[in-house]
């Protein structure tokens, strides 16, 4: 009896992963893109997904919030669980509400700055005061002081870095359990991307973050753990597999596998 309770407690405690992927494979109309990924994504930490182009990092990220549902012909096998719930058994919209997503290119809605955040709250039936939540979310991404006098002007007039922070604020306003980011800084200049990095370092205290990046220096700066994916060539068909994952220091300085060592060192020097 006692042991059972202990087991349950350890399950729901700090150590329980936010996402647990078990033998997950993804195929686009029969062509395997990612194969056999088993990975735990820890809570309230930042995990960076790194690896060469075509290894399926973005595909995995899109599957975690079920955005791949929109693309016809995508098949996901294996199991993806969000706090022990299989996300493919859940309603897609419920997954979108619990798992936020920030995209590679800033994609604010063609509406005012205020509406960009209020819209998400409204479609989710938010019952609190929208004004307060807009202010709080914008303050979390350090955008409030820059835009507080022009909340009603178009979000498309903001700079790229501001737009990306607005998109992060939009995701934060819904208080998701996990926020996924697909190369959030690749379309930004170095100063704007440094600001995002600092922001992510603060946010990971409160949220579970999963960030796809090609920038290894960024991965080293912001992440707690790193998952390295590699490409495999099966008679001309390229697909990705998880090579290894672990704490950031381990993956960067003492990688278990040669391909990880090659990738990390070839790029960072």
């Amino acid at each position, binding site marked *: 009896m006692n042991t059972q309770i202990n087991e349950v407690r350890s399950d729901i405690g700090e150590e329980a992963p936010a996402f647990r992927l078990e033998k997950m494979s993804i195929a686009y109309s029969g062509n395997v893109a990612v194969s056999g990924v088993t990975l735990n994504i820890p809570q309230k930490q930042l995990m960076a997904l790194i690896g060469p182009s075509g290894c399926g990092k973005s595909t995995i990220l899109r599957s975690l919030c079920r955005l791949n549902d929109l693309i016809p012909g995508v098949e996901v096998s294996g199991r993806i669980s969000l706090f022990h719930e299989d996300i493919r058994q859940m309603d897609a919209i419920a997954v*979108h509400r619990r798992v936020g997503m920030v995209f590679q290119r800033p994609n604010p*809605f063609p509406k005012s700055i205020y509406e960009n955040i209020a819209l998400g709250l409204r*479609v989710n039936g938010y019952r609190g005061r929208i004004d307060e939540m807009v202010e709080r979310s914008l303050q979390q991404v350090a955008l409030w002081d820059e835009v507080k006098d022009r909340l009603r002007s178009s979000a498309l007039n903001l700079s790229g870095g501001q737009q990306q922070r607005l998109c992060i604020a939009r995701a934060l306003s*819904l208080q998701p359990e996990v926020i996924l980011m697909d190369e959030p800084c690749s379309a930004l200049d170095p100063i704007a991307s440094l600001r995002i990095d600092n922001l992510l370092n603060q946010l990971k205290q409160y949220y579970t973050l999963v960030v796809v990046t090609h920038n290894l220096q960024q991965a080293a700066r912001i992440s707690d753990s790193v998952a390295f994916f590699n490409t495999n060539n099966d008679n001309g068909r390229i697909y990705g597999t998880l090579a290894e994952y672990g704490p950031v220091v381990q993956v960067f300085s003492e990688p278990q596998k040669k391909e990880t060592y090659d990738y990390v060192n070839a790029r960072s020097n």
Partner: protein
Amino acid sequence: MTNTSLSLIQIRKLIQRQNLFDQLVLVALLMAAFSSIVVTGGILWILISESVSFFSQVPITDFLNLNDPKWTPLFDDKNFAIITLISSTLVTTGVSVAIGIPMGTIIAIYLSEFASSQVRELVKPILELLAGVPSVVFGYFALQTVTPFMQQVILGVQIFFAPGRDEFDYYQLPGFNMLSAGIVMGISIIPLISSISEDAMRAVPKQMREGSFAVGATRLQTSFNVVLPAAISGIIASYILGISRSLGQTMIVAVAAGTQPVYTWNPLEGASTISTFIVEVAKGDIEHGSLEYNTIFVAGLALVVMTLAMNLLGHYLSKRVREVY
């Protein structure tokens, strides 16, 4: 230096020849662009010069008369109150817009945001077929099919609300009426509105939709909150084109709305629109250069002014709306 390479002089000649060719193409393109201006200018010139000769014979107060307006340029007792024709033009256009804009927009949203590619492949050619139906066919469709149907509907509504009277005590929809003409005109502009609006909505980047799905919005919420505002300037452009086409539509109104120039804002009555009047007079035998002849041009000018005002409004709206968002 091998003999396959060009000498400096040869290169210079080549460049000169290419420059000459570029200049020729440029002139040709300019002339093509200019020709449309010349044609438009020519039409406006004829309309205005004939209208000037009209206004030298008819005081402008008669033309803009709003008290007891009549339009009887072909009678002995001549009246020239243009509002008679403008009212019916606006009524038929209003009815067509009330049908065409909602239908066209809904079809565009469905095709762009919801339909599977198979459904789209099936529906789009049918819509294009609708766009290809000659307007005279639409006119007879309005007169022979829609009018009898609307007569039944209007009778039925009256019987429902006030039953038990003799059939001829109820209001009878006349055989020529602006309602049927407007409805069919609305159907005829659906393909125009839906195809341009759909193009505008499909041009909205995929990332914008994904951003909306990522905050938990449904497809319907995404269509109305994100895609529609992003595509609004293209959608308004389609509305303007539809309205302008309705304003100038001739065959449908001439066949189905009657040719009596009656001043009325009631869509249940029949009345001649500006375009109906023009076609009516132009096919009669009137003396070239006479006052009756001039009325065609002054009516045409009124139509051009209305269409132009519509286009300017649309231009202003789509610019303004785009700035807000």
